[in-house]
């Protein structure tokens, strides 16, 4: 009497829990899917909007002025464009970003020392934006610059990262007219 009953019980305990555990696994995984969805919604909500992360575009090009206005070996600040217009010894132009590549402080130009010195962590850069003194890891960024009819123009919307100074970055006045 007892033997078949036991066997019957065994089969029951094997079958029903497996169906039950399947359902509970299903529920739990559905719960996880819902949780992931909610996290996704929150994350998407908090991401910066496209408009905020704009990179230049139309209207970012600035007329900086006639090329002759800037003496050689001079640095002129353009606050609205957040850059310095540097004219090198050989007459070439470079639009150097004012933002320190170390941690983003604004670097002032020291005319006396002939270098940019960051007030935050004492990094120093020369007139071409090259690192003279660490901790800054790379040269100051530059902006796209070109000269049209002897007028210097800078695209203040397009900041270009560079590891160091390169002669190709310098723009010269074309001797045509």
């Amino acid at each position, binding site marked *: 009497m007892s033997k078949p009953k036991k066997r019957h019980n065994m089969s029951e305990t094997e079958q029903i829990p497996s169906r039950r555990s399947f359902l509970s696994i299903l529920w739990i995984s559905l719960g996880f899917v819902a949780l992931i969805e909610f996290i996704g919604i929150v994350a998407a909500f908090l991401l*910066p909007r496209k408009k905020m992360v704009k990179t230049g575009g139309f209207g970012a090009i600035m007329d900086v002025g006639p090329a002759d206005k800037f003496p050689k070996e001079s640095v002129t600040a353009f606050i609205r464009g957040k850059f310095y217009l540097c004219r090198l010894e050989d007459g070439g132009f470079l639009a150097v970003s004012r933002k320190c590549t170390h*941690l983003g*402080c604004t670097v002032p130009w020291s005319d006396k020392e002939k270098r940019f010195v960051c007030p935050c962590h004492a990094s120093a850069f020369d007139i071409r934006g090259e690192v003279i003194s660490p*901790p800054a890891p790379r040269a100051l960024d530059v902006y796209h610059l070109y000269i049209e009819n002897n007028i210097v123009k800078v695209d203040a919307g397009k900041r270009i990262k560079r590891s160091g100074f390169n002669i190709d970055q310098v723009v010269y006045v074309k001797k045509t007219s």
Partner: protein
Amino acid sequence: MKSEHHPSPEATGFFHQIFRSIFPDPLIPKSDQERRRYLLKNLILHFRPPTVPEKTLKFSLTWGLGGMAAVLVLLQFGTGLLLKFVYVPTPLDAYTSILALNNEVMFGQLIRNIHHWCANFLVLIVFLHMLRVFFTGAFHPPRQFNWIIGLGLFGLVLTANLTGYLLPYDQLAYWAVTVSTGMLEYIPFIGNRLQDIIQGGHEIGPATLSIFFAFHTAVIPLVLIALMAFHFWRTRKAGGLVIPRTPEEEIEEKPVRVTTLPHLLLREVVVALVLIAFVMVVSVFFDVSLGGSANPGLSPNPTKAPWYFAGPQELLLHLHPLFAVFVIPLILIIALMGIPYLKYDTNTEGVWFASVKGRRITLISAIVAIVATLMGIVVNEYLFDVVIGLHGVPPIIGNGLIPFALIFLGCSGFYILIKHRYSATNNEAVQALFVLILFVFLILTITGIWFRGPGMKLTWPF
């Protein structure tokens, strides 16, 4: 017996009934048994255990630091709530609203002072509390996870300070936050993305202020409350604090216990009142400054981080940012979190500095750290540029990997030396390493606060 606590309705008046429905128990408990009951039935007090081991009441065990931190947090909630009525979280209005707070609102400057000084004290007190817990070995089981919660609370306090720092939108605020969020850029792979998310764009602006305001006034307070409750509850579940003992004494299995009310609570109230009085005095006599309105075109010289970040800032002067911002902090955080989970030779709970030998090793470690750090700073200040110039190696190696490897070798060597020279237990050796890093950090912080002048060059503070 029962009718004493719950008087029958017909025996009392209507208002008495209402009163009893709010306060079912006698307001002033008279016997020890009543006091225990009272503690358990009171919503706020029931976070505390009904009784505590008598020896843990000793002031020189805790220095009242945990309680002080809790009091300061409550003061922050109170004053923060008031400030919220005046403050306007937009770049155009934030600065003027703080000016109005200082000049037009009655007690405005005082409330701001309290909020500011409490925030600063909180960092200090929580830090000291962490040291106390470490040096009395109060992280051994069953308190392991509470150490982690405590680290979380410390992180929250620092985040609260940093997010609050931006809100006045003066020069100090703007540049400190520029530098802090600038650090995120050096986290590999996700750094730039993370920076955009936290700043709400490429630069600090209206979105940054909204995000910081939301964190400062909603997210952090909520998480802080939850974690604090968890922290207190875990302390209670661990059977109270570690019982102080001398190195020779064994851990007591059945300590003498006294009722929390009045023995512990009375002491806590005294500490709280003294602390509040101190905060008030400081806030009356020392006004918090407000710099010029934020100007993105001009970084003040020198731009200094708030004092609790002066150590990391000093590290940034010497090391490549990848190491100063990412590698070293990551290693330190993992090491701190790992402290309770290491395998120790002995359980040193309740013994200051683990043992008699531990005290001597602590002193030696501190001296080694002070000498080595001072030498490092001076050598780096006057010789480093020469080295870089001579070899022309890329900065990430010359300024990052090589010094980092030297530091790492120095620390490992120190650990091995202590272990062999003094045949120390690993409790003592781990403690020695902790003290070494602690004092390096302290020296960096002190240098950053007082010995850096214009251009971040070494100067004298006087």
